[in-house]
């Protein structure tokens, strides 16, 4: 049985069908890429899966648990974490405070209001470990908003990893990055392989073919096809989509 399964997800924005009965399965430990032209509904799908947008219809199951009725925050508790296309960090806080906030969400109650957070050794250690893993130790005291783009994206990934997810949703982790930052991000994603399943949305085809075991192609809110790299490369409709010819809906 798949670790994660989305069945018949539907989302309408007025007359636009942004998700048209999407079925998607991600296996344990797999890196599964989701590709598709701009406006195909990739980000909408990530928002539906993570719970930031309510779906009009369909079901989401992670590890046998039906997540459909759960809110975004409850889904995190069940092992589903995400990153954002535009790095979503706390810009005026230091990198350390960013990491602490992410760690704190998973370790006990955030309603504690009398103990100084600085005195909680376990939180500090966990944030430090996260910084080391993502090569952010050098910038711990700098405000996240002034970091270079690549580092902000890495911090965004760090925030998601703090939840120790079983399924990680990466919404265009390489978007807007130079070759050096991209290479680092690919290495980082590679290092996560096996530890958790990853649903990777990405435009950088080299990265996709390098990382993903399976690839699903989303066009006009529908999954056109799913398969390994060779299957997708050889798929006639996929080729026409990426060459710019409209696929008959």
């Amino acid at each position, binding site marked *: 049985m798949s670790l994660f399964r989305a069945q018949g997800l539907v989302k309408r*924005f007025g007359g*636009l069908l*942004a998700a048209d009965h999407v079925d998607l399965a991600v296996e344990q430990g797999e890196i599964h890429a989701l590709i598709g032209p701009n*406006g195909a*509904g990739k*980000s*909408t799908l990530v*928002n539906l899966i*993570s719970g*930031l*947008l309510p779906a009009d219809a369909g079901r989401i199951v992670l590890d046998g648990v039906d997540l459909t009725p759960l*809110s*975004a*925050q409850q889904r*995190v*508790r069940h092992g589903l*974490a*995400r990153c*954002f*296309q*535009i790095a*979503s*960090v*706390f*810009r*005026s*806080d230091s990198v350390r*405070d960013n990491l*602490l*906030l*992410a760690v*704190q*969400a*998973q370790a*006990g*109650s*955030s*309603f*504690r*209001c*009398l*103990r*100084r*957070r*600085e005195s*909680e050794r376990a939180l500090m250690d966990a944030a430090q470990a996260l910084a080391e893993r993502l090569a952010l130790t050098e910038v711990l005291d700098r*405000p996240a*908003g002034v970091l270079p783009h690549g580092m902000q994206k890495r911090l965004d990934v760090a*925030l*998601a990893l*703090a*939840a120790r997810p079983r399924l990680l949703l990466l*919404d265009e982790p390489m978007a807007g990055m130079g070759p050096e930052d991209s290479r680092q991000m690919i290495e980082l994603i590679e290092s996560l392989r096996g530890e958790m399943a990853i649903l990777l949305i990405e435009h950088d085809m080299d990265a996709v073919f390098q990382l993903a075991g399976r690839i699903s192609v989303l066009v006009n809110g529908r999954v056109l096809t799913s398969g390994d790299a060779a299957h997708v490369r050889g798929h006639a409709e996929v080729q026409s989509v990426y060459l710019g010819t409209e696929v008959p809906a």
Partner: protein
Amino acid sequence: MANPVSDPSRATVQTAAAHPQPRLAVRFPGLVRRLPWLVLAVLALFPLLAPLGGLEYYVGFVRRLLIVAIAAASLNFILGYGGMAALGHAGFVGVGAYTVVALVDAGFSSAWLAWGAALLAAGLCAALIGAVSLRTRGVYFIMITLAFAQMLYYLAVSLRTYGGDDGYGLYTPLAMGAWLDGAHPDVFYWVVLGIAALVFAAFGRVAHSRFGYALRGIRDNETRMAALGYPVYRLKLAGFAAAGAVAGLAGGLLASHNAFVSPAIMHWTQSALLLVMVMLGGLGRRWGAPLGVALWLTLEEMLKLYTDYWHWPLGLLLLLVVFRAPQGLAALFERRDGHGGAR
């Protein structure tokens, strides 16, 4: 297609200031660190020193100032730290004041009981109002909190038992306990000072706790907080209810201070005034509320001596602060490392 969720511009209230310009704090770091203690000491001695300068009248004035500062601090907590732009905070002050009235009317005379009940009643009321209001955002949140506060206002107007529009006089002071009541004529002043000090210490503490950090995270990036797994709604509700409770405590104290309560105490202009004072002092800054309240009320008091048109200069002052020190007065006292004022 625009992504409606990850757009950072959706963060409701922008962080007050990422990089304040800490002028005073750089020049006199030691003084600024000790300033709160110094101020506390001066305030504690004030009733003893005031008669020497013929300033007895101002003991009552400072007492009112402290009470208003408690209410403003609770507003600063939800607005400055929590990003919840509530325009109905005077409503909770009023609930506290009318709780005291109700208890006195029913024959109770213990101050501690009355003030404690004021705190609880306003906290409960804020929890109920917050449970509805916090489902909305931005302008809608402002309007719905205003609407609830106006409902409370008209409820008070309609309560004939408690004087309706005319208000209700508390002719005998509430009893604070045998050893306090007879000790000194100004004992109520010290009680208020003690409560204010406790409230400020508590808010300072909470700001650096898990809860405080979580609230600021929600203010800065609510979507990210939800995606990190935070129970955003419940956290906001807890902050809103706590702030309402403290505002209610201030209302209870204000009832004792004035020995009189009327619906005017919870008119929406009072909520707006609290907002103005907090912004003047520094939104989301530890000492923002007391600084704003002290400056506003002191100027009002002084200007009233000279002119009936005291709103004019106060309005000009507000413009000056908005343009010259948009982060409020408290920003001038802070150190760059951010530990000076809990941001």
